[in-house]
């Protein structure tokens, strides 16, 4: 917003939030739609906007062989879900847990160990937009539920 209130939005630049990578994943989400081979499923729901997510994962021997997402939501949500599936696919459950922690730190504090972030780095801008953190987090919290073997629907509040 022009003449932005000083509260804590000092460095806002909307293209930090909507980076090209994000717009691309929004247009062409990877690993999108149901997964036939899934042996685990979990749902997520963002009550602020009503958007919903379904995650499908094929986990064998503590490794994420395949993972898909389905649902509808904003660009941040879609891109974050899409990137999450790309990152989680092929990882061990333990590695995915570490990824979750990294993501969580990134969007809540805005900073994280830059080296290890890789593709995740595009989510850094979200931190400046508290109202959008939930959009970015939904897929990750739902992944966490799958990793933990919980069946509850994730709601981001």
């Amino acid at each position, binding site marked *: 917003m022009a003449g932005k*209130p000083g509260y804590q939005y000092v460095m806002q630049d909307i293209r930090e939030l*909507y980076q090209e990578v994000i717009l691309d994943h929004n247009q062409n989400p990877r690993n999108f739609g149901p997964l036939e081979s899934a042996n685990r499923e979990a749902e997520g729901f963002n009550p602020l906007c009503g958007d919903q997510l379904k995650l499908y994962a094929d986990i064998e021997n503590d490794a994420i062989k395949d993972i898909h997402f389905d649902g509808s939501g904003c660009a941040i949500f879609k891109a974050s879900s899409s990137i999450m599936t790309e990152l989680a696919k092929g990882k061990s459950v333990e590695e995915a847990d570490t990824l979750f922690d990294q993501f969580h730190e990134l969007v809540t504090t805005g900073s994280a160990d830059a080296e290890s972030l890789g593709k995740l780095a595009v989510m850094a801008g979200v931190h400046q937009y508290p109202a959008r953190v939930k959009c970015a987090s939904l897929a990750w919290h739902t992944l966490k539920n799958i990793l933990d073997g919980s069946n509850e629907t994730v709601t981001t509040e």
Partner: protein
Amino acid sequence: MIQHLHPETIRKDFAIFNAHPDLVYLDSAATSQTPIQVTDAVLNYYESFNANVHRTIYSIGNEATQAYEAARKKIADFIGAEDAASVIFTKSATEAINLVAHAWGRKNLSAGDEILITEMEHHSNIVPWQLTAKETGGDLKYIPISQEGELEDWENCISEKTKLVAITHQSNVFGTINPIKELAAKAHAAGALVLVDAAQSVPHSKVNVQELGCDFFAFSGHKMLGPTGVGVLYGKTDLLEKMDPFLGGGEMIKTVTMETSTWNEIPHKFEAGTPNIAQAIGLGAAADYLNDIGMENVYAHEQELLQYTLNALGDLPGITIHGNPKKRGGVVSFNVDGIHPHDAAQFLDDDGIAVRAGHHCAQPIMQKLGVAATCRASAYLYNTKSDIDKLHDSLEKVKSVFN
């Protein structure tokens, strides 16, 4: 005579446009901005006669009482109520509706009775009735709405079973202005009472509860230039007098013994505890401000902006405007094809434009429209055509980013 508003002059009364000169505020249906006349009235209480009301002997306490009761009178006049005692200060429109649901609904409804609402209600006029229906065994029925955002076939929804019709005066999603007067006549003929959710009408048009013929009438201060934390329930005095109280505590009693209590006269019977004194006084000042400008002028200005907005958005390809009611206020809900409303609103914000994205606390409408959320632009007396031009241009930009 309807005169033209001068939004440019009016804006000078609103400090927020000084703090953010480029702010295009198009979310007044959620909450309105506040003129210095209102904040001054609030400040004046704290700085000159900060005291509790109704039970004080000392001077500043008398002043506080007089100012608080004068605000009640102003609000009664503003909505055309004959008797100031029929105006109860609540914390919000939501509390006002819940007050009726508890103090009237739970005592007067039983199994088989019908509460009739509409598909275009705000959650504040749905959930209290879902809860009341559950507690009393009554049935909650809905007047359906058309794709245009108008009531459909409401005449046939009212029957002998109907005990209460609770309906919004003006839809916060479509802007639809509902035919309350006709509906109230029909409801009364069937022996039902009528509660009007006037949260969106009182701020934007001249209303008269007696002409409308409603029994209860609820609205909020913060949507009509007043402070947050104050709302109003108007009720016909004979109804209010017959009703049991809602909250118990100070102010609302006449006598208390350890065993039992007797109730104070209305409106105090329904104002338990220390009231929202400063906020009621601020709301009185908001009514003064709106009276000075003239509600007919506010309405006319918004009608002009509404047409301008519909034209501007209609010019843009790929914009779906929801509903097209014949009588409507200055609220326009829309979606940009292929772009989630929260993404659109985020880009608008980047251009300094505040619109709402979401379900607008009206999920049944969203379910009807088959969308999770919409964008909504809502205008008030401080908005200008240039605000709408900026909305138009920024939407064009958003579309280009996502294509």
